[in-house]
C-alpha cells in the first residue's frame, strides 16, 4: 500500500512499483523501462486504444485491456509479456500486415536484397520496405521486428488506392496506412485544425478531409504535424525520401518570421535533412508552420549557394581568394569619400551580424548610413510599428484574452502557430473578431467578421473605435457587425489585438496604427505585433538604422554617443543624412554594401560599387563588384530577439558550404584589413559579450526566456507620407497590394523551395469572376494594371470571394507601388 497520495502501488510483471496516480498502465510501464508495443499511442495525443498492440493482462479484468487507455489503480497486478499476449499481438499485427505492403518484413533475404538494390527505389509506389521513405525509421517495422513476426498468415490484400502526390511537401499513400488515427488526432487536438478525419467504413476506411475536398480546400496549412507522427510511410516528406535517419539534432530558432518558433534541425553526415518543432518552454510539443517545417533543407542545401568570394568582371563573376576579396573590399572602402558609403542589412540577420554591421558603418566608415530593408514593408507606419515592439506583448496575452481582435491577419501559411492559439481560444469559447477585406482563414472561427470594402479598413477601424467609445453608434452597414464587435470587445477581460501584415504596406498605415493604438487604450487591450521579419526587434536594439544607436538611444543623444565612444575608442558619427532603404538611390553615388540583402535593379545602376554579402548569388545578369559568401542560419552561432523581447539562440548544425563565413566575421575581417580596431572578436560569443555591455537587458549568453519591454528613446524616422494623390478619372478598380512575406535574406522562399510556389504565389492578382468576365479575362491571363503613376503586370486568379470592383495582388519581392490602395485600370496583355 502506498502512503503517498501522488502515487499508487502496482505490480507489473511480478515487480512492485510506485507509479504516479492517474497515469495509464502504458505510461507506468514505460517509466520503468518495460517495453509494451504500441502503434497508435503518442505522447502528445490522447489515448486511443485503436491498434490493440498494447493489450495487457490485469488481475480482475475480463479480457485484455489496452495499456494506453487503462489508468493504474492501487494494488493493480499487470502482466505485459505472457505467451498468450504475445501470440495475440502477433495475430493482430499480422492482420495489419495483410493490408500493409509488408512482404519485406517477412522476407528471409532482405539483407542481401538491400545490398543488391543498387538503384534508387523511392520514386514510384511503395510495394515493400525497400521502396519506402520510412525504411529504417518505421514504427511498424520496429514492432514487427521486436515481436519477431516471420509470416503473414492471412490473405494479403493490397488496397490499390491512388498515391496522392499532387500536393507539395508530402505524399500520401493510403495503402500503407494502418488507421492508427495519430494524424487525425494531431490535426484535431494539437493543431485544432480538424482538416483530417476518417472517411468511409470498414475496409474502405481512409484518412482525409471530409466531403471529397482537397487538403487545400479543407484548410490544410501544410504544417506537417501529421507527417511527423505517422508511424508508417503512409505520410512521407517528399524532399526527404532519400535522406535516411538523422544522426543528430540541433536546437535553434526558426528564421522565417517573427513568431520565433523553436525548431530542431535534423542532420545526417553534416547535411541538413529536415526540421521538426522543438518543445515550447511555455509547454507542449511545440509547433511549426509550413515554412519552418518544410522550407529549410532546400534553402540551405541549394546547390546555387555562394561558396567562394568572387569579383565582377563585366558579366562574369570570377572566383578569388578570401585574402584578395578582403583586400579589395578594404581598399575600395578606405577610398570612400564621406557620404558615399551606404549599408543595407536584412532583418533576417542575427544580432551578432547586425551589431557588427552597424559598428562597421559607424566605426570603420564613420557614417550613420545604415538601414534595414524591413521598412519597405511598412509604409508610413514603420515608426509606429516599431513602437508596438516596446510593449513586450506576448502570445501569453492572447492566451489570457477573453476576446481577440485580429486586424489584417491570415494565419494559414505564415504565423500558423498563432492561428492554433486562436482556434484554441475559439474552442474554449473565447471570442475572435477579425477585420479583413478579403476571405482569410480566421473567418471559420471568428464570432464576427468585420469586412470593410478594400481600402476602407481605416474608416471601419474608426467606426469600431467610435462604437467602442460610445455604445449605440455604428453608422451605416456593416453597422450591426461593428456594434456587435464593439460589444464583444468592450465586455472582454484582458482583450488582445493581433496585428497581421495585410494593412501594413498601406500608405496610411501610420493612421491605421494610431487608430489601433487609440482603440487599444480605450479597451485596455494589448496589441501583439506579429512582424514578418524574424529579427525586427534585433534591428532596433542593435541600432541598424541611421538615427538609432545600439541600445536604442537616438544618434542625436550626445551622452549616448560618448558612452559608445568609451567602449569603441572612436566617437560614433552624429550626422544623419536622411538616406534610407525606402529611397536607396537618393544622394551621391558611391559604394553600397549589402548584408544578407539583394538589391533592386535600379540601385545597381546608381551605385559605383556593390559589395554583396549573402548566401545566394544576385539574381541579375550583371554580378556584384564583389560577392562574399555568407553562412546560412543553420551554419552559424548567434541570437535573435523576438518581438516580445525574448532573446532566442541560433545554433550551428552543419558546416557552411566551401569557404562561406558568418556575416559578422566577414565584416570584421574587412574592418581589420582597413586598420580599424574593435573588430577582434574571436567568436560570436565575444560579439554577444560586447552587445550585453551596450544593450540594456541583453543577456551575455544570448538566450533569455523573459519578455522585455524595449525602452530605447531613439526613433526611426520615415520621410513624410506623400499626400494622397487626387483620384482623377473614373478608373474602375480599387487595387490593394500586400507585401510578399515569404522572404529570406532578400529572396522569396519560392526561389529555392519548389513546393512553395503552389502555396505562396506572388505577382498574382485576384479578381471577382464577374469583373473578369466583363474584362474578357480568364484564369492565368497576364494583365496590365495601370494608374497615372503606377504600372504592374500580373497574372489573373479568378476568385469568387474577392470583392467585386476590387483587385488584390501580392507583390513580387522588390516590387513597390507608389500608392496603396489606389484606383486603377486593368487591361489584358498580349491581345
Amino acid at each position, binding site marked *: 500500500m502506498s502512503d503517498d497520495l501522488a502515487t499508487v502501488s502496482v505490480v507489473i510483471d511480478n515487480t512492485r512499483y510506485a507509479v504516479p496516480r492517474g497515469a495509464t498502465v502504458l505510461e507506468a510501464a514505460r517509466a520503468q523501462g518495460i517495453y509494451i508495443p504500441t502503434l497508435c499511442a503518442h505522447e502528445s495525443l490522447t489515448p486511443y486504444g485503436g491498434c490493440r498492440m498494447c493489450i495487457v493482462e490485469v488481475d480482475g479484468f475480463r479480457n485484455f485491456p489496452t495499456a494506453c487507455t487503462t489508468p493504474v489503480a492501487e494494488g493493480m497486478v499487470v502482466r505485459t509479456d505472457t505467451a498468450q499476449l504475445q501470440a495475440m499481438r502477433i495475430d493482430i499485427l499480422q492482420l495489419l500486415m495483410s493490408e500493409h*505492403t*509488408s*512482404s*519485406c518484413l*517477412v*522476407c*528471409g*533475404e532482405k539483407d*542481401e*536484397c538491400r*545490398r*543488391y*538494390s*543498387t*538503384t*534508387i*527505389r*523511392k*520514386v*514510384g*509506389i*511503395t*510495394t*515493400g520496405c525497400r*521502396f519506402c521513405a520510412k525504411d529504417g525509421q518505421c514504427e511498424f517495422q520496429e514492432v514487427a521486428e521486436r515481436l519477431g513476426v516471420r*509470416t*503473414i498468415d492471412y*490473405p*494479403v*490484400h*493490397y488496397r*490499390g488506392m491512388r498515391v496522392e*502526390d*499532387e*500536393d*507539395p*511537401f508530402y*505524399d500520401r499513400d493510403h*495503402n500503407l496506412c494502418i488507421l492508427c488515427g495519430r494524424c487525425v488526432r494531431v490535426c484535431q487536438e494539437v493543431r485544432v485544425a480538424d482538416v483530417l478525419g476518417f472517411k468511409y467504413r470498414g475496409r474502405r476506411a481512409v484518412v482525409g478531409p471530409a466531403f471529397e475536398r482537397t487538403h487545400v480546400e479543407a484548410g490544410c496549412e501544410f504544417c506537417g504535424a501529421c507527417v511527423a507522427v505517422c508511424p508508417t510511410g503512409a505520410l512521407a*516528406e*517528399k*524532399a526527404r*525520401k*532519400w535522406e535516411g535517419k538523422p544522426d543528430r539534432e540541433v536546437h535553434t530558432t526558426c528564421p522565417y518570421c517573427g513568431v520565433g518558433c523553436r525548431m530542431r534541425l535534423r542532420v545526417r553526415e553534416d547535411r541538413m535533412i529536415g526540421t521538426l518543432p522543438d518543445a515550447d518552454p511555455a509547454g507542449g510539443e511545440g509547433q511549426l508552420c509550413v515554412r519552418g517545417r*518544410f*522550407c529549410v533543407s*532546400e534553402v540551405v*542545401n541549394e546547390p546555387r549557394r555562394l561558396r567562394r568570394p568572387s569579383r565582377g568582371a563585366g558579366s562574369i563573376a570570377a572566383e578569388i581568394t578570401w585574402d584578395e576579396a578582403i583586400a579589395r573590399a578594404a581598399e575600395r572602402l578606405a577610398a570612400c569619400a564621406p557620404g558615399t558609403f551606404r549599408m543595407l542589412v536584412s532583418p533576417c540577420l542575427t544580432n551578432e551580424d547586425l551589431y557588427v554591421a552597424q559598428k562597421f558603418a559607424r566605426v570603420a566608415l564613420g557614417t550613420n548610413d545604415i538601414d534595414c530593408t524591413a521598412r519597405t514593408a511598412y509604409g508610413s507606419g514603420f515608426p509606429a510599428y516599431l513602437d508596438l515592439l516596446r510593449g513586450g506583448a506576448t502570445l501569453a496575452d492572447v492566451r489570457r484574452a477573453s476576446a481577440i481582435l485580429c486586424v489584417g491577419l491570415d494565419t494559414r501559411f505564415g504565423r500558423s502557430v498563432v492561428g492554433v492559439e486562436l482556434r484554441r481560444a475559439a474552442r474554449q469559447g473565447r471570442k475572435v473578431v477579425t477585420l479583413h477585406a478579403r476571405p482569410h482563414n480566421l473567418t471559420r472561427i471568428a464570432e464576427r467578421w468585420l469586412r470593410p470594402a478594400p481600402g476602407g479598413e481605416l474608416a471601419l477601424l474608426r467606426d469600431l473605435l467610435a462604437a467602442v467609445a460610445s455604445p449605440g453608434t455604428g453608422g451605416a452597414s456593416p453597422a450591426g457587425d461593428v456594434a456587435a464587435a464593439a460589444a464583444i470587445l468592450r465586455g472582454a477581460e484582458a482583450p488582445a489585438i493581433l496585428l497581421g501584415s495585410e494593412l501594413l504596406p498601406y500608405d496610411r498605415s501610420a493612421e491605421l496604427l494610431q487608430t489601433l493604438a487609440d482603440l487599444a487604450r480605450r479597451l485596455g487591450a494589448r496589441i501583439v505585433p506579429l512582424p514578418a521579419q524574424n529579427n525586427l526587434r534585433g534591428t532596433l536594439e542593435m541600432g541598424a538604422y541611421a538615427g538609432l544607436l545600439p541600445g536604442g538611444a537616438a544618434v542625436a543623444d550626445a551622452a549616448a554617443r560618448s558612452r559608445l565612444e568609451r567602449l569603441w575608442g572612436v566617437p560614433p558619427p552624429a550626422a544623419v543624412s536622411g538616406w534610407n532603404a525606402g529611397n536607396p538611390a537618393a544622394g551621391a553615388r558611391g559604394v553600397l554594401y549589402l548584408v544578407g540583402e539583394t538589391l533592386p535593379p535600379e540601385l545597381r545602376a546608381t551605385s559605383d560599387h556593390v559589395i554583396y554579402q549573402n548566401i545566394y548569388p544576385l539574381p541579375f545578369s550583371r554580378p556584384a563588384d564583389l560577392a562574399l559568401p555568407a553562412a546560412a542560419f543553420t551554419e552559424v552561432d548567434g541570437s535573435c530577439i523576438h518581438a516580445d523581447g525574448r532573446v532566442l539562440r541560433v545554433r550551428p548544425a552543419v558546416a557552411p558550404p566551401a569557404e562561406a563565413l558568418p556575416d559578422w566575421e566577414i565584416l570584421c575581417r574587412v574592418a581589420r584589413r582597413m586598420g580599424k580596431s574593435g573588430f577582434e572578436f574571436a567568436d560570436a560569443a565575444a560579439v554577444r559579450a560586447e552587445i550585453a555591455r551596450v544593450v540594456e537587458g541583453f543577456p551575455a549568453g544570448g538566450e533569455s526566456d523573459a519578455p522585455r519591454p524595449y525602452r530605447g528613446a531613439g526613433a526611426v524616422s520615415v520621410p513624410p507620407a506623400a499626400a494622397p494623390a487626387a483620384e482623377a478619372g473614373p478608373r474602375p478598380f480599387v487595387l490593394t497590394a500586400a507585401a510578399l512575406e515569404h522572404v529570406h535574406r532578400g529572396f522569396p522562399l519560392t526561389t529555392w*523551395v*519548389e*513546393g*512553395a*510556389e*503552389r502555396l505562396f504565389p506572388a505577382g498574382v492578382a485576384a479578381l471577382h469572376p464577374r469583373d473578369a468576365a466583363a474584362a474578357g479575362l480568364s484564369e492565368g491571363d497576364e494583365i496590365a494594371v495601370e494608374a497615372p503613376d503606377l504600372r504592374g503586370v500580373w497574372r489573373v486568379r479568378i476568385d469568387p470571394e474577392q470583392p467585386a470592383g476590387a483587385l488584390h495582388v501580392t507583390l513580387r519581392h522588390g516590387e513597390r507601388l507608389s500608392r496603396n490602395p489606389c484606383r486603377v485600370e486593368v487591361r489584358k496583355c498580349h491581345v
Partner: protein
Amino acid sequence: MFRVFASRMIVPNIHVLTLEAPAVASVARPGQFVIVRAEEEGERVPLTLADWDARAGTITLILMNAGSTTNRLARLAAGDAIPTVAGPLGNATKIEPLGTVVCVGGCYGIGSVFPIARALREAGNRVITVLEARSAYLFYWEERFRAISEKLFFVTRDGSRGLKGHVARLPEILTGLGEPVRRVFANGCTFLMKSVSEATRPAAVPTVVALNPIMIDGTGMCGVCRVRIGGTMQFACVHGPDFDGHQVDWEELLQRRKTYLREEVLPFMTSRPAAPPHHPETGTCAWKER
C-alpha cells in the same frame, strides 16, 4: 517522335508502355532491347522488349517506376510522344530445341522473359515458368504464361502465393520436376539473376541471364556497360545482354551499378508536387505530338 499507343500501371509500380515504333517492331527478336529517352534533355535508358506487333508497328515495354526517367515514362499517356526509341539492340536470345527449359522472371523481368518463353515454346521446348514477386498482387501476364507453359510456379516473399521465399528455392522446383532441365533463362533485378545463377550452379544447369548494367548508347561505343564474364571484359550491349550466369562477376556488376547513386537521387530532392499523372495537356509529362 515515337507516339505512345497505350500506357497503364499493370500492377503497383510496374507499367506497361506500348509505343509506335514500326522499324523496331518489324525486326525485333526475343531478348533484344531498345534505348529510350523520356524527353530530349533526358538520360538514355535500356529497356528489354516485352512484346511487339510487326503488323501494328508497336512495341511493348515493361518498366518499374524506380528513377528519374522511368518516373517520366510512367506518367506518359496515350497520345504523348517520346523523342528516342533506338533499337532493336543487343543480340537476340539463342532459341533452339533443347527439351525441358525453365524461364524465371521477377518484377519487370516477368515481362521481358515472356517473349523468350514464347519463342522457346514455339521452338518445341517444354517450358516451365517460375515467376517471382514480393507479394501475390504483383504478378501480371499470368494468362499469357499459362498459355505457353507446361507448368507455372509462383514464389512470393510473403508467401501470399505459391512458395514463400525467393528464387533461392529454385533447386526444390527443379528437383520436383522429375525431368532433366537443359537450360534456365532468368530475367529480373540483379539480385534475382545472381540468386538464380547461384541456385543452378551446384547442379551445373546452364543458366542464361540478361544483364542490366548502366548503359548509354547501346551500340558498343561508350563502354559504360562493361561486365566481366569469366574474367574477360565484355560489353553488355553488343556482346550480350545474355551471358552465362555462372561466369558473371556479380560483385563487380553490383559496384558498377552503384556508380551514380547520389546523382540518381538529385532530381527528387524537392518538395515540388508531382506532375499530374496522365495529364498530357499540362505538357509536364512529355510533348504532345502535333
